[in-house]
């Protein structure tokens, strides 16, 4: 499973000893430098440079197949789980490279959480167990009262507490689709991530649930940096501070065409392709 190769030579980064303890708490900045991705011999992404500032919401937009989800998955080392997937360039969290061993991979994924398109609560666990599953999975221990506090606070942050506080013992799969997705958000928040990656978190949900999740995003974005992939232009406009527009020409790897504050990308895009896309002329 670990076929990862670093294919581009990169200047060495600061050693892990220079990392302050504070760096592992609170919203963190994420930087992508010249990232390229391959599946086997097929290059799907190249030359991606992007700064995702602490406490901000960055939206990745673009038509299907342009590499935004692939890029998102490189940000917490999920990309390498696909057999044959390789990558080049560097990705830094608070200035520390996540791929060159300075941080254990399980820590990378704990600090950079992820919510995927299709809600995936653990079916063998109750609602409450799902929320704290990340602690068990990564071997963290908490006392009973800490656990209960964590369940309540994470479910509250995800806007789900009032709906499920009397159903904590139900199986996670007994909730509705929108509730399951918020349960997955609560589950991600429970391990106190510094960055939360969201891959089209609302695409499987109805408008009411979508609105609820967008509200959640704006509430938690102070304490956690958010990177969200969205196909919905209105949603990107509503929730994000900055936008990056990805595009792949036919048979070519995807790249970032334009990256600016959200307001500018929608009202005053620099590139004509961006303008066409955000106005719904293709994609």
């Amino acid at each position: 499973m670990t076929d990862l190769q670093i294919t581009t030579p990169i200047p060495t980064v600061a050693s892990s000893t220079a990392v302050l303890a504070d760096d592992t708490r609170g919203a963190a900045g994420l930087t992508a430098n010249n990232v390229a991705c391959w599946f086997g011999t097929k290059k799907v992404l190249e030359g991606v440079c992007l700064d995702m500032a602490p406490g901000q919401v960055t939206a990745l937009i673009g038509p299907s197949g342009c590499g935004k989800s692939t890029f998102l998955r490189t940000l917490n080392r999920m990309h390498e789980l696909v057999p044959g997937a390789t990558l080049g360039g560097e990705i830094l969290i608070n200035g520390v490279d996540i791929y060159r061993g300075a941080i254990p991979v399980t820590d990378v994924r704990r600090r950079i959480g992820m919510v995927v398109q299709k809600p995936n609560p653990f079916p063998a666990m109750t609602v409450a167990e799902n929320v704290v599953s990340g602690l068990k999975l990564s071997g963290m221990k908490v006392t009973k009262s800490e656990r209960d506090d964590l369940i309540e606070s994470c479910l509250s942050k995800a806007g789900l507490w009032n709906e499920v506080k009397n159903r904590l013992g139900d199986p996670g799969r007994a909730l509705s689709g929108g509730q399951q997705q918020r349960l997955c958000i609560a589950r991600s928040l429970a391990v106190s991530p510094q960055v939360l990656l969201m891959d089209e978190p609302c695409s499987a949900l109805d408008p009411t649930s979508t609105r609820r999740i967008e509200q959640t995003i704006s509430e938690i974005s102070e304490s956690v940096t958010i990177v969200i992939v969205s196909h919905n232009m209105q949603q990107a406009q509503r929730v994000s501070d900055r936008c990056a527009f990805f595009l792949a020409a036919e048979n070519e790897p995807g790249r970032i065409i334009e990256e600016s504050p959200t307001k500018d990308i929608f009202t005053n895009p620099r590139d004509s392709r961006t303008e066409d896309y955000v106005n719904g002329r293709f994609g």
Partner: protein
Amino acid sequence: MTSVADVSESNLVDEARVTPVVRRSKVDRAYRAVATLSGSVVFVVMALIGGFLLYRGIDALRISGWGFITESQWAPDMGGAFGIAAVLPYTVSIALVALFLAVPISVATALFITEYAPRRLRRFLTATIDLLAAVPSLIYGLWGLFYLQPRLITLSKWLADNLGFIPFFEVNEDFGTSLGVFPSSTFVAGVIVSLMVIPICTSVMREVFGQAPPGEREGAMALGGTRWGVVRDVVLPFGRGGIIGGSMLGLGRALGETIAVTLIISPSFDAKWSIVEQGSNSIAALIALKFSESTETGISALMAAGLALFVITLIVNTAASSVVNRSRSGSATEI
């Protein structure tokens, strides 16, 4: 297409409920007939086997009555008493020893193949294990008898010396604990049978573990889960049905294993707790050993013993499949 006018005119049609008529094409009908026939063969064969055993064994059962279950001796040919009170417990304990060893090893092997092994090794291991399943049981028996047993009895002695206070490992003090009392025991037979069961269990479990939903796996990884965490919280809960299903397939094989057990054991008709002490038995081995030298009553008695084995296997598998069907991975392991 019917226009609105047509519909209002056809209001006169009787509104009684309609049974939809399906007209199947010839090909469909022919295929259906063949499939139905093949499907019913399973039940017919099952019924024929059960019926045959009952028909051939009924004479002996009439002679012995309930004694067939309570009597431990086996002397139907001399007009003596006979029953499965010793043979059956021996059969079950050989199978249990085999499963006790095979199940943990199979679970671990299947997890190694699906979760940890690099891809090339994974393919190689899978092929090797399937190959192990294809080795004839006679070969296992011979190898077990001449190679494994002389080495294994050292472990038997260690168990008897150190854990002798547990009835399973107790050895009759009269003999002392020289190595001579340990060959041909339930334990040795069980170990050999476990080697035959491991490939079957591993195949089923590997198949099922490999089907653990990728979404849940990734969800667990994305939370910073360790490999072990993912196995414990995603793969094992999902694979529960496969573990049970694989074990039951193995149990079926272990209960019926004949030739290897026949080679290893020295037949005993006195039930005992100890599994390490010399002397064991099994219904299949009993039939194999006695068949050629039995009289009419003796053959009938052997058929009755076969019926007992058949019924027990059915009960075990039915019980297991009800557990398996209730689990998520159950559909992958029909038993």
